[in-house]
């Protein structure tokens, strides 16, 4: 158990390609931090630097109070779970899990105790005698996690551990990782490209793009107040809708004019904009699909659109619509209150009216792509 501190950490390949720019982060003891971002954003590189598998080009990395820049991976007291499991194919599950302990010349009985305990936690006791080849994907991933648990490491690193599993197993393992975390209570750093995993697992999420940290915050924070267009688009599924709009100041209050309707802002947002001294300007307006409301009766102050795709998701519909101005927008509509007639009317080519309240709007500066409300 230890904190992990990254100060101005950089990764430069071949003196040219910068994979990670000036990474600053303090991970508290026993915290579960998730690095998330699209491929090539530097999240895995950062994790591998923490593991010691990649050299740190610049900056300082501390585990606990110790600077570990030049410490060998084996001496950092960390454990890592790999995407492809990286089980040693020639030895049994038991030996796989005991491998690190044997290298440490640990007492045989203690090794046996720890391996059995870990196997018990993960429900793989009956497979201990098998070779990894004879296991399914989910079982292999459990062994990989077990191999990390027996070490009782200070920091637990996981590099996309669920990416190789099918969707159903992934959900199940995700839940198991949450439980596991409660049981072994140590510092976790988890890398994924899947925003759902990031949201459900992390105490804090680090969103990265092109080697830069975009935003660090709790899942709720990054969902509610994304710092820029990238974070807004990355977190949440289906992704946030972006529309061209105009912000106008009217006395003390602000309003957004979009697609022929005017939506006033809430007072707390007005205050932020006033403090920043924002005047009238063109903006990018962001609205999450779940925050829109479809207007069946009253069409006043609603945007007119045409349905292009109707995706039935079971409990809700995802309606892809195209507005008069040509923007495409996704709306989420719960199916529970819809009668058959309305449901049938929601088909290709039909008109649909929708709007949204001021409090759900995200405003972005089109030039800097930064949020005006952050």
């Amino acid at each position, binding site marked *: 158990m230890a904190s992990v501190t990254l100060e101005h950490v950089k990764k430069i390949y071949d003196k040219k390609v910068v994979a990670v720019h000036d990474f600053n982060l303090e991970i508290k003891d026993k915290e579960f931090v998730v690095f998330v971002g699209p491929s090539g954003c530097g999240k895995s590189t950062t994790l591998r630097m923490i*593991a*010691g*598998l990649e050299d740190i080009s610049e900056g300082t990395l501390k585990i606990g109070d110790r600077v570990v820049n030049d410490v*060998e*991976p*084996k001496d*950092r007291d*960390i*454990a*890592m779970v*790999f*995407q*492809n499991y*990286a089980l*040693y*194919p*020639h*030895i049994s599950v038991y030996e796989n899990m005991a*491998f*690190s302990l044997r*290298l*440490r010349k640990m007492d045989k009985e203690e090794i046996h105790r720890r391996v059995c305990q870990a196997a018990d936690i993960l429900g793989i006791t009956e497979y201990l005698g098998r070779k990894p080849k004879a296991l399914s994907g989910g079982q292999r991933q459990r062994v990989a996690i077990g*191999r990390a648990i027996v*070490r009782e490491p200070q920091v637990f690193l996981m590099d996309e551990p669920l990416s190789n599993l099918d969707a159903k197993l992934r959900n199940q393992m995700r839940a198991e990782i949450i439980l596991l975390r409660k049981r072994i209570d140590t510092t976790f750093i988890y890398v994924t490209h899947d925003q759902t995993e990031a949201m459900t697992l992390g105490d804090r999420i680090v969103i990265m793009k092109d080697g830069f940290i975009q935003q660090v915050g709790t899942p709720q924070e990054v969902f509610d107040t994304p710092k820029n267009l990238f974070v807004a688009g990355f977190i949440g599924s289906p992704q946030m809708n972006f529309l061209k709009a105009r912000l106008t100041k009217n006395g003390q209050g602000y309003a957004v004019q979009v697609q022929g309707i005017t939506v006033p802002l809430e007072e707390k947002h007005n205050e932020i904009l006033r403090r920043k001294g924002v005047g009238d300007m063109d903006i990018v307006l962001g609205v999450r699909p779940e925050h829109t409301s479809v207007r069946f009766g009253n069409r006043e102050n609603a945007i007119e659109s045409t349905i292009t795709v109707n995706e039935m998701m079971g409990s809700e519909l995802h309606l892809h619509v195209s507005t008069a101005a040509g923007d495409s927008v996704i709306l989420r509509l719960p199916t529970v209150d819809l009668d058959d007639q309305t449901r049938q009317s929601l088909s290709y080519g039909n008109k649909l009216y929708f709007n949204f309240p001021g409090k759900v709007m995200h405003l972005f500066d089109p030039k800097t792509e930064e949020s005006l409300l952050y």
Partner: protein
Amino acid sequence: MSKKNEVPEVDIVIDHEAGVIREVKQPGLRSKSGHERRVNGGIYTVLVIMSIIWLAPFVFLVFQSFRSYITESGGMVAYLLPKQWSLDNYIWLLTDEKSHFLQWYGNTLIIALFCAVIQTLMVLSVSYTLSRLRFKGRKLIMNVVLVLGMFPGFLTMITLYFLLKQLGLTQQGAIPGLILIYCASSGMGYYISKGFFDTIPKSLDESARIDGATRAQVFMKIIMPLAKPIVIYTILMAFMAPWGDYVFASYVAFGSEPNYNVAVGLYRWVNVNDYQGFFTRFCAGGVLVAVPITALFLALQKYYVEGVTGGAVKG
């Protein structure tokens, strides 16, 4: 049910005794076309002829070796099968005072064993290093080695001879001298095993290093057991090359009979000594040389094939 005059290719028959339904193929209907048969026949004929040509010298060698040099003739004769089978040649080789055969055999064995050990260690560590570590000049080294490998080894023969001579490693010192020659550039043969190592996921190394292993431990405990086919392949190759070598062995040991290897010694019998008298003994020596290597090869054939193809898939 199908009508009888349409004749289905397969009849479905219920076998009541066994309680199963099985398909019975009707005779005559599934035979291959005449053309296909003729093509196959042609191919097999060619293969049989080729294997006869291939095997003839070996069969010949074995037959000659069983013809007594005492009661029949030790030289070349105009018939293939010995009139009387005997082990005289072998007995002479192994027991006669004038025969240096056992000594030569021992020399060759020592050289081959040393080479097998040293060369295997060198080849495997070079391959692992080039496969796993990234360092300055790695690409350059690989390319230079590739180009150097295109020159035949005996281009350096004269230089090597003088070098060895200055070190006192010719003639009486031929055995260590030859071991040195065979092992010196052996790391250059890294290609196949590097290709094999490249197919072992790097994350295994990384995982082991995080688990607490040093690079050497990763190599010994993880990579070696997984690379068994290529290790065996490398040992086999390292053993076989000096076992059958003539060119280097003949000039490094030139003039010092006790330091010959088998190939050189046997050849000098038929070349310098009484050609007619020693021919059958030469053949017997050849058989004795071939026996261990054949046995080794057959025993390890499975790994050998795996090694060659395993390295080739993702080379």
